[in-house]
């Protein structure tokens, strides 16, 4: 982000005709370097595959077929990327204001649980659409409140938000388990403690013509809206200033505390919405399966997207595709599941390493 600001604020006299081409050149850097990094990660992974006596070509073919090559595979990929888009936003938004929050998992789990709990008295009484809206709002408010706690602790008491958000995740999961195994347990389901099912009439269906649920589209829309919020509004500007230099923002009289709590709450609401979709589109009830690690994978996605909401969807889809194809790779090549984790790890490390390459290639420098 600071790079972008520098580039935009650099007082340089450029001929009007050259502006387009030079901006194009510096923007290209943000596309070419990550792509090269991914290719490099794949090459490293190919060496690994050769080392265990498997064919990298077959691997690439299977990843293509299992993740993107057929209509089914593509929908599989998009479906798997939906929760990741929302949980990545839960990391990216606080990152713009300079906070590393990794508690999306807790907000997702609690948001999903409260959404399921709100539905219990409404199912069979209220019609589906108002019920779903109430569930979604409840999930978002809960998630927003939960992450808002971390933001509040940060600005009121100076508590490290990374630690507090991580620890609150465990508390959130424990709260859900308490209710799901106790007061709100569906007694007709003896061996897997869950809340009462909301029933198929109250479930969020797929986007027409696909098998992908609506959470994917909501994620895309939110990415766009939050991009606008963070880059085109005074709120976003104030948040970025705070993220760039906390003391300067204070000195300017910006409401730093409110901004931090607001960004944290927005993040929590995104994760809470992901929880709502897990309950209303997938599970149909709240139980321990909500804590499936989407919140943690979202951290990876956000970092790879450099906390840019517009870059989150393609990164999330890439992750979704690799995971979706991972199954086919396991089945056809007889490789253990850890293989895909090796690839994910390589991509992550190489991409992070590639950060040091920015600004080092003269080809991307704007020419005066």
């Amino acid at each position, binding site marked *: 982000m600071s790079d972008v600001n520098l580039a935009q604020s650099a007082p340089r006299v450029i001929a009007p005709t050259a502006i387009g081409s030079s901006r194009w050149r510096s923007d290209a850097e943000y596309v070419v370097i990550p792509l090269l990094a991914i290719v490099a990660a794949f090459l490293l992974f190919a060496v690994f595959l050769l080392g265990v006596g498997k064919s990298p070509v077959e691997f690439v073919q299977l990843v293509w077929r299992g993740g993107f090559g057929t209509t089914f595979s593509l929908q599989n990929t998009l479906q798997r990327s939906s929760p990741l888009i929302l949980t990545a936003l839960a990391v990216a938004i606080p990152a713009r204001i300079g906070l590393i929050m990794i508690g999306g998992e807790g907000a997702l789990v609690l948001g999903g649980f409260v959404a399921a709990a709100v539905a219990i008295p409404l199912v069979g009484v209220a019609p589906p659409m108002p019920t779903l809206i109430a569930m979604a709002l409840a999930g978002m408010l809960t998630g927003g409140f939960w992450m808002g706690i971390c933001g509040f602790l940060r600005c009121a008491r100076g508590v490290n938000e990374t630690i507090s958000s991580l620890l609150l995740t465990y508390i959130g999961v424990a709260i859900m388990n308490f209710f799901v195994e106790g007061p709100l347990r569906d007694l007709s389901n003896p061996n897997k403690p869950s809340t009462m099912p909301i029933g198929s009439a109250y479930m969020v269906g797929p986007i027409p013509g696909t098998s992908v649920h609506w959470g994917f589209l909501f994620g895309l829309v939110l990415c766009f809206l939050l991009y606008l919020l963070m880059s085109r509004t005074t709120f976003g500007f104030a948040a970025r200033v705070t993220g760039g230099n906390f003391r300067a923002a204070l000195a300017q009289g910006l409401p730093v505390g409110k901004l931090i709590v607001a960004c944290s709450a927005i993040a929590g609401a995104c994760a809470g919405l992901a929880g709502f979709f897990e309950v209303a589109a997938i599970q149909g009830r709240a*139980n321990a399966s909500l804590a499936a690690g989407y919140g943690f994978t979202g951290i990876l996605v956000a970092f790879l997207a450099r906390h840019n909401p517009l870059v989150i969807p393609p990164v999330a889809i890439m992750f979704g595709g690799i995971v979706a194809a991972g199954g086919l790779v396991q089945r056809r090549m007889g490789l253990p599941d850890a293989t895909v984790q090796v690839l994910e790890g390589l991509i992550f490390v190489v991409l992070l390493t590639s950060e040091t390459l920015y600004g080092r290639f003269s080809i991307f420098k704007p020419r005066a």
Partner: protein
Amino acid sequence: MSNNIISRRALLQTAAVGAAGAAIWLRPWTSARAAELTVGIVYVGARDDFGWNQAHAVAIKSLKEVPGVKVVEEENVPETDAVSKSMESMINLDGAGLILATSFGYYSPFVVDLAKKYPAVQFRHAAPLWNKDKDPKNAGSYFGYLNQAHYIDGVAAGLSTKTNKIGFVAAKPIASVLSNINSVLLGARSVNRQAMVQVIFTGDWSMPVREAEAANALVDAGCDVITCHVDGPKVVIETAEKRGAKTCGHNASQAPLAPKGFITGGEYKWETIYKGYAAELAAGKTLPNFTAGGYEADFVRNSAFGAGCSEEGKKAAMAAIEGLRAKKPIYAGPLKDNKGKVVIDKTYDNLDPFLDKMDYLLEGVIGSTT
């Protein structure tokens, strides 16, 4: 010109003959392909976890040797829509005709919904959840009464213990776990009236740290044989072996983990069920919706005796296995729970549904379900 026409006609003729020939040649090939069965299996954890997943993976390995059967496997599949997509991918991309879903949480809503979506594919799930009134006919359940194998553990342990105290590390106080604990006690008591079982519940299926603490605490309390019912028994068995205690396994063979103290262990024999399914599909029969049993059906077994088992323990265990094959009842009532209340009023058959509702520990078990 005429050359052209002839060649065009010749071309058409050749193409037609070729197509017909290809069709004839293809027919046996396609029917042979149709007779082949692809079985897709999904595991919630790693295939080499020394526990639940490994028990299934071992069975699948033997299914792979059956001619005409192809197996596709996927491990570490969480109980979310990921399992739904994995199973669907097996159907769409691998042509699976039989799906084996091996984790409890896969069933509802994932297996049920997918069975409705793909009525031509058979789905079987490893827990007694299929409901004949509500659930699709191409879905079903299978499971083994592992408590019978734990009863044999008890017999062998009862004659291998010196302190007469057997320690049991248990996950949750639900019926299937309680039945395993009570069966170990009854097995041990059948050969050693002084035998006791002391149980510690860890609270969840996979709590490695607490499992190690519990195993240590039981050894400290004087137990010289340790057994367990948790997802991955590796930690419990290794901890006990390190402390010099003997061990009985659970789910899969843990014999390699305890070369000195391993007695025997309760194992599932899923291959009986899996091979049965494959044979019935090959014969064009419909699969049963509900398959369950113990030693009498060859659905469970005991790991080969280890160095920790006494000679008389081996003999008594072999005899007890013959008894179970002949359906000799384990729960011979009346029996009291460890608070003195009669909970089993008469002798029940080993598969009696009355026993599936067990919520007590029998007299002779030290510990509490709450």
